[in-house]
């Protein structure tokens, strides 16, 4: 079949089109026809179908995500809010920071190395498109059971891919998560976060303003990758003589991306760019329609000028291709030559593919014939929006009624000790060093804290020592028991982790990983989680600046645990005052901050010892989190604490074990009055941290806590080469270290 031009489409209104195969619903297709007043051309259909997909249009989640804007707490620090590629936060001294988290879940299951690698590539391009220099990455990961054979395929590949791409780009990896749970067996979660730094005046937004400005595509050539099933259908129905094999897998080229970063920052620095957009999902369809839509509205593109890697690609495929390492810029005619010169310097291919027009249509031509003529807003921003039905899951009450209070607790001290060892060596609590040793954490020379620490911390201004700290957290077990509380607990934990290092939490990014939105109980979980997160952000005064939604993480009927992953960014005016987590000096006193209650729903203990999930997650107390955060930041500023570690899954004993092992120091612990040893060691009550206070600072520190109303119980002292719980048991550090460190290598090396 010949080229499906706009004219041809107008002449053949009844020509059958593969809208269903492309993932559009009947009424969505009808709406496209209504918008255009005719049937869409093949190219237009390709564009609408990818841009109106769940992934690009957020059609199921939009109505819920609005709360992040509607309920956003006022923040003077927010320079660019939700809606752009990434939010921008003022951190002082004229410096702004942008950060965002994104998912690359499904591709990483199909081809772990490339899926994860291109996940890093994608989020980094989001950050450079804001005009920022990327300075660090993080990687929250979820896998199926640690001992499942397929996890042996997926995990090493994902880790190698993240390292392979991030190391080659020269971005330090400063933290992340590794969680194992059978619910992620067929749906591993590969989330990636990138943070970038820029001057206030360098913030660039994606828009194409000014008729006559040139549209430049630069970076890798366009190939047939990432078009996937849609393309097979598209090309087969549009032209059955074409080779129909288009790879669904995208291959990343980190070297090309490194050149893209340097080249982009140089064109920004010379002020050559009017608007810019990275090419991610939906490729050129997305970039052209969004740039045009955010600008004055008109754009004309000569699609046959796009440099190709595979000359057999059809125009539809070029529009849908998700080839990596490409960017699109809008440049004033006077700046085009210089722009191309800089690209040439970096060996980056750059091509003028079109220009901004004073109309309000996006028009695309193929060898002189028009194949697209659409109002760009209808493609980019006015896709379908669904308020999908929600239903509280029928199983929820039974799950909550299955209270962990009924689980047998250790009968004696020997069993208590054995359970501590079982906990610290369980895959979720064990050392992640086998993974993180594959990531470069030193490159760029500004990493102040990296794994294992509560947050990663980066110096952003060498002169003043100004820095930022970031932590990501999410606990799907908690969220399964209560998605509203689960999302809040994720935020609370990340907030606490940032504060524990001495930084003041400022802003939030989130990645919402859920099952199918077409399942009302999943939709209910999603609605609860977003409501919970928005409410908690309001209380803590930390606005959501951006994020990502990943739905359909589901195998058959079985959805993953609802898994909101929350990233919190904080600022610290002098990184020299950071609080690390290591216990470094014998004789320093240990204080437990906050209240400890008998809370074991969704706990690591119940999972490791009993394989149990039930009851209610620990109680959320955001006011307490805020107070704890203030105390941790003040104590760091005034030099009152030498080490701090937040308490989360695994409870106090897990935290103390990590701090002891990191610092190579033992600790003698005393169970405080009113608590039994078991609850003291394993409870997961929130709003808590353990701190080490240097001799001579105790009075000042405890007075401050008392004055502000934060419980601070003296629970021990740094001493010796074992963890000794007085009157109960002693665990030599060597034995502890062996247990903590052998697990992952034994599974994956």
């Amino acid at each position, binding site marked *: 079949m010949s080229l499906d031009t706009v004219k041809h489409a107008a002449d053949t209104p009844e020509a059958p089109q593969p809208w269903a195969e492309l993932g559009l619903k009947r009424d969505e297709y009808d709406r496209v026809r209504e918008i255009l007043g005719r049937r869409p051309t093949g190219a237009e259909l390709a564009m609408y179908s990818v841009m109106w997909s769940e992934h690009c249009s957020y059609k199921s989640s939009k109505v819920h995500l609005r709360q992040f804007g509607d309920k956003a707490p006022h923040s003077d620090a927010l320079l660019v809010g939700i809606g752009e590629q990434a939010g921008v936060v003022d951190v002082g001294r004229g410096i702004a920071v942008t950060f965002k988290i994104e998912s690359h879940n499904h591709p990483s299951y199909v081809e772990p190395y490339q899926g994860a690698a291109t996940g890093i590539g994608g989020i980094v391009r989001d950050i450079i498109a804001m005009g920022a220099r990327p300075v660090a990455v993080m990687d929250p990961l979820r896998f199926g059971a640690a001992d499942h054979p397929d996890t042996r395929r997926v995990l090493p590949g994902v880790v*190698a891919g993240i390292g392979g791409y991030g190391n080659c780009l020269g971005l330090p990896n400063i933290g992340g998560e590794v969680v194992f749970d059978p619910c992620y067996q067929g749906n591993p979660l590969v989330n990636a976060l990138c943070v970038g730094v820029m001057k206030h005046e360098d913030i660039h937004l994606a828009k194409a303003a000014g008729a006559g400005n040139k549209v430049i595509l630069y970076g890798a050539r366009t190939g047939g990758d990432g078009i996937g099933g849609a393309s097979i259908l598209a090309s087969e129905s549009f032209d059955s003589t074409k080779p129909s094999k288009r790879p669904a897998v995208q291959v990343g*080229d980190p070297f090309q991306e490194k050149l893209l970063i340097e080249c982009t920052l140089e064109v920004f620095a010379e002020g050559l760019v009017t608007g810019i957009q990275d090419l991610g999902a939906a490729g050129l369809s997305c970039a052209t329609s969004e740039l045009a839509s955010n600008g004055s509205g008109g754009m004309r593109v000569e699609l046959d000028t796009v440099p190709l890697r595979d000359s057999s690609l059809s125009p539809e495929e070029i529009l849908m291709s998700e080839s990596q390492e490409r960017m699109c810029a809008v440049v004033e005619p006077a700046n085009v030559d210089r722009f191309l010169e800089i690209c040439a310097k970096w060996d980056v291919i750059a091509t003028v593919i079109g220009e901004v027009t004073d109309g309000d249509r996006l028009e695309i031509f193929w060898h002189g014939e028009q194949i697209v003529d659409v109002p760009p807003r209808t493609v980019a921003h006015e896709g379908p929006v669904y308020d999908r039905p929600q239903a509280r899951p029928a199983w929820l009450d039974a799950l909550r009624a299955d209270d962990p209070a009924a689980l047998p607790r250790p009968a004696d001290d020997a069993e208590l000790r054995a359970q501590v060892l079982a906990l610290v060596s369980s895959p979720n609590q064990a050392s992640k060093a086998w993974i993180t040793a594959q990531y470069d954490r030193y490159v760029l*020379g500004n990493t102040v804290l990296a794994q294992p620490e509560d947050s990663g911390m980066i110096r952003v201004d060498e002169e003043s020592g100004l820095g930022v700290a970031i932590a990501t957290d999410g606990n799907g077990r908690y969220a399964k028991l209560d998605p509203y509380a689960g999302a809040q607990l994720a935020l609370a934990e990340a907030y606490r982790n940032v504060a524990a290092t001495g930084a003041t939490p400022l802003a939030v990014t989130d990645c919402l990983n859920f099952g199918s939105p077409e399942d009302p109980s999943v939709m209910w979980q999603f609605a609860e989680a977003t409501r919970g997160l928005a409410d908690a952000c309001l209380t803590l005064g930390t606005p959501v600046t951006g994020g990502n939604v990943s739905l359909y993480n589901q195998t058959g009927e079985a959805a993953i645990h609802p898994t909101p992953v929350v990233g919190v960014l904080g600022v610290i005016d002098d990184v020299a005052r950071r609080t690390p987590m290591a216990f470094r000096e014998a004789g320093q006193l240990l204080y437990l901050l906050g209240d400890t209650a008998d809370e074991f729903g969704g706990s690591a203990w119940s999972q490791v010892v009993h394989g149990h999930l039930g009851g209610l997650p620990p109680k959320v107390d955001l006011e307490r989190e805020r107070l704890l955060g203030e105390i941790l930041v003040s104590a760091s500023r005034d030099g009152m604490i030498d080490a701090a570690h937040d308490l989360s899954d695994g409870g106090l004993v897990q935290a103390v074990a990590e701090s002891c092992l990191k610092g190579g120091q033992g600790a003698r612990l005393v169970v405080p009055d009113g608590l039994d040893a078991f609850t003291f060691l394993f409870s997961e009550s929130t709003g808590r941290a353990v701190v080490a206070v240097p001799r001579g600072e105790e009075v000042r520190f405890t007075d401050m806590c008392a004055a502000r109303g934060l419980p601070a119980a003296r629970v021990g002292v740094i001493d010796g080469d074992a963890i000794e719980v007085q009157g109960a048991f002693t665990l030599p550090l060597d034995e502890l270290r062996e247990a903590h460190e052998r697990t992952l290598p034994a599974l994956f090396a």
Partner: protein
Amino acid sequence: MTTRVGVVTFPGSLDDRDAQRAVKLAGGEPVALWHGDKDLHQVDAVILPGGFSYGDYLRCGAIARFSPVMETIIDQARAGLPVLGICNGFQVLCESHLLPGALTRNDHLHFICRDQRLRVENAATAWTADYTAGQEITVPLKNGEGGYVADERTLDELEAEGRVVFRYLGGNPNGSRRDIAGITNEAGNVVGLMPHPEHAVEALTGPTIDGLGFFTSALRKLVA
């Protein structure tokens, strides 16, 4: 007059800014050199930094070795210009045959980033004069292809001539022959090593400041 130390940026160099920072902290003047420019701009010494030049495609350092700047550096190095190759820079030096042997895939097949203990075996090179022979230092190590290999004769020769400059302590991290972490040429002006001294120059960001000695060594030697 301050000493000018050139730091080459190849496409894909990553630790070039770190090397420049280290030169500055040591009291020198860092000069950025571009791979496509043959001119060394009157520098007194050159650092080939770490990273993934040309993506480490083909072999680490193989494509960078043919860049215009390397032509000049190879000539000048033979004439005595102090040259330090760190990690990828070491690989470039081997590919250029300024240093013997080659660097191969780590024996455990993974990229590894860790704090590495080293023994300084030779404190007489242009880049190690501020250390003492036998001194132990700790600096970061991070690479995927850091296994040093050469034939037995070359290895014996290196040992006999005292050209093994650094050896790994506390476990060989990559299968390097004879625990070799770094070597020098016969004249002692060209040194290459896999670990990263430029990441150990500030207490705040490095595991130690043991790496500073590389940069002060070169400066002192040049001023003297």
